[in-house]
């Protein structure tokens, strides 16, 4: 055990910090989940890519720096510490890319990864269907074999930023006789062009965060099948595990939130109810626990271990911590609780109310916390399924 960062790690941190301090926009960008904000975020992503900070842990050939997982955590800490914009590329680089690295052909890697990291080609996820949410295996969208490829038909929903992206990835039933987890194939498919209809869906906080995607006999060439035909479930599980686990929610994000909470408390401490001091301290400790838990996970992975079902613990923990931290912040705001981002008087530009609403999605998406707790109980603790 050595909890000092190595000289190399410290040097990397210093570089990241310096670049971010010089380059992060002074004024926060408008939400990346609105049309206007999206474009500005894409501009930022391009800048990040040019400086080779878009995907630090990827091999250099795809625009990364070959950084270690530990260095990636360091980058993330610095990124959130600097208050840098949220990543509109994240569904691509965190959900799809790990699957491509594991299952993709060389051609797919060459063609897809660099434009994804460079924010030249934007990716949305297309997991859920109206009747297949938690129960992903009940999906009914189909792919029909045709000359040189497949024809996709069906409806996908909750495609984050789907209205603004170029392509999406998801599962389709390629074996019409199949049921549940069998006979599914992992496809990359276009969000524009013939047969594709998009409908934006406004999120709780008012941003057009989601799209519904209607596919009517949309052609997808063979080269856009990821992994083997009819093996989509296995391929997809690799991705959902990274969504639930390490990638999407790095400790840096929560450390930054805890710091902002401490700052908010400092401003309000003379009027705040004394018990809020407890809430603030607990929020800080929770973020610290998450940080070191993650250092432990990353050490294990760097030494050849796997995340596995542990990622479910991770997901339950960060999502509930995030809600509670925001609840403490809203209590500190007192009667200004309700002031939204449009308010001139809203504290921190309404970031706490918006952040609270976003936090409430945490226990739902990427597999509800109910499902995660089932996984923990069954796969980690070995309790009986039925």
């Amino acid at each position, binding site marked *: 055990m050595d909890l000092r960062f190595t000289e190399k790690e410290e040097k990397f941190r210093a570089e990241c910090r310096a670049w971010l301090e010089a380059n992060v926009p002074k004024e926060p960008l408008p939400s990346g989940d609105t049309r206007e904000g999206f474009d500005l975020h894409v501009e930022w992503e391009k800048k990040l890519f040019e400086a080779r900070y878009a995907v630090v842990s990827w091999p250099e050939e795809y625009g990364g720096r070959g950084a270690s997982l530990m260095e990636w955590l360091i980058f993330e800490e610095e990124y959130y510490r600097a208050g840098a914009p949220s990543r509109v590329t994240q569904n691509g680089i965190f959900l799809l890319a790990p699957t491509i690295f594991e299952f993709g052909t060389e051609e797919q890697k060459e063609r897809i990864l660099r434009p994804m990291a460079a924010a030249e080609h934007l990716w949305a996820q297309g997991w859920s269907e109206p009747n297949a949410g938690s*129960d992903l295996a009940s999906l009914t969208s189909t792919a029909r074999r045709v000359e040189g490829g497949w024809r996709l038909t069906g409806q996908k929903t909750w495609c984050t930023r789907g209205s603004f992206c170029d392509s999406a990835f998801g599962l389709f039933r390629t074996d019409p006789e199949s049921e549940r987890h069998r006979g599914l194939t992992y496809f990359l498919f276009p969000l524009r062009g013939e047969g594709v209809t998009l409908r934006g869906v406004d999120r709780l906080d008012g941003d057009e965060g989601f799209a519904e995607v209607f596919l009517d006999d949309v052609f997808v060439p063979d080269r856009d099948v990821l992994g083997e035909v009819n093996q989509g479930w296995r391929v997809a599980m690799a991705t959902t595990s990274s969504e639930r686990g390490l990638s999407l929610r790095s400790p840096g994000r929560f450390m930054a939130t805890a710091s902002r909470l401490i700052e908010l408390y400092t401003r309000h401490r003379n009027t705040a109810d004394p018990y809020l001091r407890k809430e603030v301290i607990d929020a800080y400790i929770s973020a610290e626990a998450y940080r070191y838990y993650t250092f432990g996970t990353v050490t294990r992975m760097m030494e050849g271990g796997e995340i596995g079902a542990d990622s479910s613990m991770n997901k339950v923990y960060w999502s509930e911590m995030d809600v509670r931290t925001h609840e403490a912040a809203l209590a500190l705001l007192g*009667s200004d609780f309700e002031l939204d981002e449009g308010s001139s008087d809203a504290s921190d530009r309404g970031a706490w109310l918006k952040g609270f609403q976003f936090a409430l999605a945490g226990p*739902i998406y990427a597999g509800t916390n109910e499902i995660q707790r089932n996984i923990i109980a069954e796969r980690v603790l070995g309790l009986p399924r039925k």
Partner: protein
Amino acid sequence: MRFAFTEDQQMLRDTVREVLARECTPDVVRRAWEAQDQGEKKAEGPFQTLAETGLLGMMLSEEAGGLGMNEVDAALSIEAAGYAALPEPLIETLASIRVLESRLKGDGVELLSQIAAGEARLSLALDVGGVVPFAETAVLFIVFADGRLSLNRREEVELDVQVSGDRTRSVARLRGLKAPGIELGRGEEAVTLRAAIFDRAALGSALFLNGLARKMLELAVEYAKDRVQFGKPIGAQQAVKHHLANALIALEFSKPLAYRAAWTLAENEPDYPVHVSMAKLRASEAARTIAKLSLQVHGAIGYTIEHDLHLFMKRAWALTAAYGTEDFHRARVGRAILPEQGDKNG
């Protein structure tokens, strides 16, 4: 000791429920949202119909055209309004109309009838620097500023428009007064009158929150029965059952505190503030909890503004902070039952 409502009180509630079920559907609430978002003038709607049932003026004396009723008589109706997320200043009207009756003379009396008829919307601006609801739709405001309590027309009040998470509330910051308006009281008397209105508005919020909570719970129950995943309704999953059982428990143990507080106000019991505080605190906590549980049961669909849940959830969030935050009310209970700790925190 009899802790139950009369048949008359329940009948009034049923009438209000029927009116609102017909005239204040979620679509109507949604239109109020959209109207605010687009800066439109508020459409006419359920408020007038409610006024026709006599609800707005029910607490006025019979001489003033009312029914001489009290906070207990009104309690279930406010709850019913919460259940419908009525996007109108009902809490504000019922909290203050009797104070207005006792103070308004001459021309002012005409205003009373307009308020009771739902023609002149009335809101409350009880703290300079505080958040004022219905700032865009109300034409009259009871303002507490500079040691005076006054009734002012909108153009007399300095309001700085803000945006609430719940757009139907069209909030503003009270900066002060531009013109004195009709004085309702000054000095000690103004403080007393303001307190009487504040506590009634806090109680009204508690009742309204309980109604919102009931609706959020019902939406979740219906969804849990209908939504099939893994080959059965999600409501057959024990985790979902327990979420909804917890929601019901939170609600059912909030309601008695609100009813008791209504009674202490109706009877003018000297300790009514502590009862109001218990009611408002627990209703706020329950509504927040139930909002969270209902959203969790709904999953992604509840996370969109296409679904109705958010109409109720955002009103609930806003009301938890209106007329005293949870911490304000808890501290007030603490002062009544506990010795001080050190020289603050009391």
